[in-house]
C-alpha cells in the first residue's frame, strides 16, 4: 500500500492532483464555506472548459450554454416535478444528460469550423439558447429566473451546507478521476493530442478528426453539466446569469490563468480568481480592475498560464 502510494506520487501530475484533493477536503475549515463551494463548482466548470481549449485546441465562447443547461434542467425539474425530496437527486443526472445533448448539438455544428469561426459559432448557439430561455417566461421565469428551488434531502435529514459540500466533493473526485482517465491516461487522449498537432496527419492515420473532437466536446459538456446541476441545487435558484455570455469570459480567464495545457491548471485558475475577487471586493468595488491587470500580466508574462512553465505537469 505504502509503496503503491509512493509510486503514484513520483509523478508530478499525480502530486498536483493530490494537492487539489487535500485542498478541497480541508478548505471548508480554512476559508469561508461559500468560497470553498464556489471554488469546487467553478473549478470543475473551468476544468470542463479546459478539455475544449487544452485537448481539442480551440477557444469556445459558448461554454456557458452547457453549464446553464445543466443548471436549468436540474433546477426546473426540481421546481416543477413533485416527488419525495430524497428521491429528487435523480434530477441531478438529468441535468448532466441535458448538457450532453446540447453539447452534441453545439459540437456537431461548431466543430466543422476552426479558430474564430468555431468560437463565434458557439457564441451564436449560446445566444440562441439564452434568448429561448428568456422568452419562455412561463417555464423558466425569464429575466427573474426561478427562486426557491426545493433542495433534495437525505431521507428525513435535510441537507446542511457541510453535507452538501462533501457530497459535491465526492462527485468532484469522481469527475476528476474520469477526466484523468479519459484525457490523460487513455489512448483517446493520445489521439486527441495527435489531432491537436496535425489534423491532416491524424486523418491519414485513419482517424475521423470530427468524431474524436465531438466525443471530447460532449464529455466536456457532461462535466459542465455536473457543475451546472451542482450550482442550481446549491443556490436553490436558476437565472439568466448562468447562460450569460460574460460567464464564458470568466471561465476562459480561469482556465488560461492556471494554464490550459496542465491538467489541474483550470482548477487553480478558478481558485485564484474566486479568492481574489473575494479578497479584493472587500476593499473596493472595482475588483475587476485589479483582476484585469493580473490577467494581463499572466498573459504577457506567463503565456502558458501559471502552471504552464512546469514542463512535467504539461500534457
Amino acid at each position: 500500500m505504502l509503496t503503491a502510494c509512493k509510486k503514484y506520487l513520483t509523478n508530478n501530475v499525480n502530486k498536483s492532483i493530490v494537492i487539489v484533493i487535500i485542498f478541497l477536503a480541508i478548505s471548508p475549515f480554512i476559508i469561508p464555506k461559500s468560497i470553498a463551494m464556489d471554488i469546487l463548482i467553478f473549478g470543475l466548470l473551468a476544468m470542463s472548459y479546459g478539455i475544449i481549449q487544452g485537448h481539442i485546441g480551440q477557444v469556445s465562447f459558448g461554454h456557458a450554454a452547457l453549464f446553464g443547461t445543466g443548471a436549468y434542467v436540474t433546477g426546473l425539474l426540481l421546481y416543477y416535478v413533485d416527488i419525495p425530496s430524497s428521491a429528487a437527486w435523480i434530477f441531478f443526472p438529468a441535468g448532466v444528460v441535458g448538457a450532453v445533448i446540447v453539447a452534441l448539438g453545439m459540437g456537431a455544428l461548431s466543430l466543422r469550423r476552426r479558430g474564430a469561426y468555431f468560437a463565434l459559432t458557439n457564441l451564436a448557439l449560446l445566444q440562441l439558447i439564452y434568448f429561448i430561455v428568456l422568452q419562455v417566461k412561463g417555464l423558466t421565469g425569464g429575466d427573474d429566473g426561478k427562486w426557491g428551488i426545493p433542495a433534495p434531502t437525505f431521507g428525513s435529514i435535510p441537507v446542511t451546507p457541510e453535507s452538501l459540500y462533501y457530497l459535491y466533493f465526492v462527485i468532484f473526485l469522481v469527475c476528476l478521476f474520469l477526466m484523468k482517465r479519459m484525457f490523460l491516461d487513455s489512448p483517446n487522449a493520445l489521439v486527441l493530442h495527435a489531432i491537436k498537432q496535425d489534423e491532416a496527419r491524424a486523418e491519414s492515420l485513419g482517424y475521423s478528426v470530427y468524431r474524436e473532437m465531438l466525443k471530447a466536446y460532449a464529455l466536456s459538456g457532461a462535466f459542465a453539466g455536473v457543475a451546472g446541476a451542482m450550482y442550481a441545487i446549491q443556490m436553490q435558484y436558476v437565472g439568466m446569469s448562468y447562460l450569460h455570455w460574460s460567464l464564458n469570459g470568466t471561465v476562459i480567464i480561469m482556465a488560461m490563468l492556471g494554464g490550459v495545457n496542465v491538467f489541474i491548471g483550470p482548477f487553480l485558475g478558478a481558485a485564484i480568481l474566486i479568492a481574489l475577487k473575494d479578497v479584493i471586493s472587500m476593499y473596493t468595488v472595482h475588483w475587476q480592475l485589479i483582476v484585469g491587470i493580473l490577467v494581463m500580466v499572466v498573459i504577457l508574462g506567463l503565456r502558458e498560464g501559471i502552471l504552464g512553465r512546469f514542463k512535467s505537469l504539461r500534457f
Partner: protein
Amino acid sequence: MLEIQDLDVFYGGTQVLFGVSLTVKKGEIVSILGRNGAGKSTLLKSVVGFVTPKQGSIKVDGKDIVHWPLEKRTKGIGYQPDTKRLFGTLTAFENIRVSALGTKNAKATMGNVEGILNYFHPIKGMMNRRAATLSGGEQQMLTLTRALAREVGLILLDEPSAGLAPAIRDNLAQAVTDQRDKSGCSFLIVEQEINIPLGISDRIYGLLNGKIAFEGTPKEAVETKAIEDILMISKKG
C-alpha cells in the same frame, strides 16, 4: 488490390497527372520512378485522399474509394508522407501507438513494431524521446516504422530512402520484402533513387511529366535504358 484508372489530377488550373493508370496486385511490390515534379507524390496523395482527382477511379479490392472520406480510406492504408509528419510533442513510442490505434487491428500492428525496429535499430533506444528532438534520419526511420508496422493491405511509401544512412537503406529494402512475405500486404513505393526499387520491386512504372512513360520489370527497365531516360541520368553528363 489497388487499381488506378485514367487519373487526372489538377492543382488549381495546372494539370499534374494525365490519365495515369496502374495496378498493384496483392502481395506485390510496385515502384514508381520519376524526377522531381513528375507527379509521384501527387499520385500517392490521391490514393490517400489528400488530393481529389478530377477524373478517373481508384479502386481498392474492387471498391471505388475516390468519394470515401479520408479516414475511411486511411484505416486500411499505411502511408509514409514525403515530409516527415510526426507529432513532435508525442514521444517516438506514442507516435507509433497513435498510428496503430487508427488501424482496424491495433494489436497486430503493435506486435509488428518490435520486429521492424530491428531493421531501424538506431532508434530502438529512443522510444521515450519526443519526436521533435530526433534528427532528420531518425525521424525518417520513425515514420517508416510507423507506416510499415501497420497491419493493413496496402502500404504507400513516399521516398523512403531519403535521409537514411547507406547501411539502413539496405535494411529498409529487407524490411519491406520481409513485411510483404510475412503479412502479404502490397507496397506502392515512390522513389528518385533507383537502387532499392530495382532491387526489390516486382514491377516498375516510370512517371514523366505526369504520364506513365514506362511499365515493366526492373530487369526490363535496366535493359531498355528506359529508367535512364525517365530520370535523365545519362543526359548532359
